[in-house]
């Protein structure tokens, strides 16, 4: 397939892997975090760990929007559908995520709530046009990549004079999450988190540009390479990070120059800015409350804000105490370290956020069987 196969070329991959092996110093271990769940997924799907030397370790970050949405916000969405009788429109991968008492949107639908799976925010707007007698709420989640389409439908609804459409906004911010990981007392005090560099998500940077990451390079001395989601992009980014570490540099480099600029997409940033403002604080599954890490709809658009339109209240909900997703999302533990993993917690019956979406680290470990490889190793040695 054109524009895809070029980035999955096995021969080129082996050449880059060879360079990584030659340039990675055997005297040290490189701890590199891929922030985004899409990267985590690609790493396992293409078997990239097999191509890396043992001293280059990939640590999986919290960049999975479904995973980090707190139970309380999901409970609110379910409440909108059940108690307030709205047509609740959600992206597909949100549907199976368990909220309190393991109740999910799919289960609510089975009990009679009107929950629709949509593929874009525009589908939700169309439902509102088609059902003028019903309240339609778009359950908006995601990082900076999905925020501009949400802003667009809010403007469009106003332009069309739609009185029955609103948005339940849960958009979150990538740089705030990276800042939270670097500042995390958990990681800092325990001294557990060693991070030598970040692979930044290219799709987010097509919107916000590479500039917002510069402070991590400057203030925290962490190299960052913004990378695409194809396996060759990832390998190239890993090589670039190793070179920065070896040279003692900490810069923001752009591997995805085919679409990312320093400034990003000015028009997208502008409409986001016109529509949303930054929340004082927001709860993340696994990270807790993170200041200035999420967006809310500006008061000018209160009519389109489901949180203003419906009397909803938040009840913070506790995670399963044995769940290790917090430390996993911080990069200090691996899914294999969790006692629930693969036993009480599986993709069919997820307990923690990292297992709920295919982009979560635990789900990627589980689906692509990395947890089983230890079995293969032990089996072969017998």
């Amino acid at each position, binding site marked *: *397939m054109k524009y*895809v196969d070029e980035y*999955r070329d*096995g021969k080129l*991959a*082996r050449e880059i*892997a060879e360079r990584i092996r030659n340039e990675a110093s055997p005297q040290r271990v490189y701890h590199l975090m891929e922030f985004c769940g899409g990267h985590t997924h690609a790493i*396992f*799907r*293409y*078997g*990239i*760990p*097999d*191509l890396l030397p043992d001293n280059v370790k990939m640590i999986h970050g919290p960049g999975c929007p479904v995973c980090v949405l707190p139970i309380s916000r999901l409970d609110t969405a379910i409440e909108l559908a059940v108690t307030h009788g709205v047509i609740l429109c959600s992206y597909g991968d949100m549907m*199976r995520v368990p909220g309190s008492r393991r109740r999910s949107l799919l289960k609510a639908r089975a009990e009679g709530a009107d929950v*629709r*799976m*949509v*593929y874009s925010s525009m*589908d939700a707007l169309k439902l509102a046009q088609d059902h003028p007698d019903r309240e339609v709420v778009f359950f908006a989640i995601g990082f900076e990549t999905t925020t501009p389409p949400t802003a667009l439908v809010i403007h469009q609804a106003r332009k069309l004079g739609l009185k029955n459409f609103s948005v339940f906004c849960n958009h979150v911010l990538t740089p705030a999450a990276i800042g939270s990981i670097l500042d995390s007392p958990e990681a800092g005090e325990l001294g557990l988190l060693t991070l030598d560099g970040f692979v930044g998500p290219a799709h987010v940077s097509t919107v916000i540009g590479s500039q917002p990451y510069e402070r991590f390079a400057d203030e925290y001395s962490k190299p960052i390479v913004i990378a695409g989601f194809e*396996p060759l992009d990832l390998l190239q980014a890993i090589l670039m990070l190793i070179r920065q570490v070896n040279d003692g540099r900490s810069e923001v480099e752009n591997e995805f120059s085919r679409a990312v600029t320093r400034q990003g997409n000015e028009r997208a940033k502008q409409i986001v800015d016109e529509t949303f403002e930054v929340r004082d604080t927001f709860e993340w599954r696994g990270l807790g409350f993170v200041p200035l890490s999420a967006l809310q709809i500006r008061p000018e658009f209160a009519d389109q804000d489901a949180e203003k339109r419906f009397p909803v209240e938040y009840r913070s909900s506790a995670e399963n105490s044995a769940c290790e997703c917090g430390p996993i999302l911080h990069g200090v533990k691996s899914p294999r370290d969790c006692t629930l993993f693969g036993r009480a917690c*599986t*993709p*069919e019956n997820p307990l923690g956020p990292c297992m709920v979406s*295919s982009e979560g680290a635990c789900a990627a470990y*589980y*689906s*692509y*069987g*990395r947890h*089983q*490889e230890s*079995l*293969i190793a032990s*089996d072969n040695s017998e």
Partner: protein
Amino acid sequence: MTKRTEYSHALDLQNGRVEMAHGSGGKAMAQLIDELFLQAFSNPWLEQMNDQACFNLPPGRVVMATDSHVISPLFFPGGDIGALSVHGTVNDVAMSGAQPKYLSAGFILEEGFPLADLQRIVQSMAAAAEEAGVAIVTGDTKVVERGKGDGCFINTTGIGVLPDQLNLSGNRVQPGDKVLLSGTLGDHGVAIMSLREGLTFETTVESDSQSLHDLVAAMVAAVPQINCMRDPTRGGLAATLNEIAQSSGVGISIYEASIPVKAQVSAACEFLGLDPLYVANEGKLVAFCPADKAEQLLAVMQQHPKGKQAAIIGEVTADPLKFVQMETVFGGRRMVDWISAEQLPRIC
């Protein structure tokens, strides 16, 4: 063929709709059977109008399979529920190595369903049955109230006969066996997906829905040592390989680069975030045979119109952990696990 009764008005096959009376056992039902089902499926067993069919079978073991079809939408590029309901059961029978002979057909119709659509479905079933060399010899029709069905559900049961020298089963696969696939993956699932509400995208991909009885006949005639055949429908190739690995207590290794996938299917999967290994097929089979017969079997498959793109996609390994693994195009290895839930809602 003569009708049992003269009816005051012929069925309105253009504008008429299914009514509760069509399933009530009375005259309306008799007319539906006479003017629609009997016309289309015409054969000596059905025309006897008994509650059962009575037939002789050639020598050999009798093979039986059943499949219910609840697909939405009912009509899709490359097929419809009628043809699919024949192909599905014919293929389930054929995967044993048997030649399918007879089918039953049970319809559950929703009140209000257009008779024109029903006629289209029934005619498509008849054509599919003829192509597969099977007769639809007995049937049943029920009607449910409006809102309690999804237009039309069809159950078919098939019977076939298996020659003595063939022994194919999911638990007979041996380490060292080669894994052969008869053609491209994911065509059916992607064709269905392209029509789903809220997800209409333009594609030229058609469902691969087809009967594999003739391909199977050519394969078992040339290589009777085939250990197992399956058609990878729901859950895709990944589910089928895991089933076999479990049943036979073996591991399976496949090579991503050797698995045929159409460019359009690959592109659709790419932007929908799906993996072709998990997407449904309705006209493909996977076969396991001893390594020394693999090239011969491959040649037979490739000479058949339904197996032109056949490929050897992997091999069976001795592995007490019964893992299915794949060598990626990228040179890494990964597990191919069972799917945890449907990738697509209700596709067959």
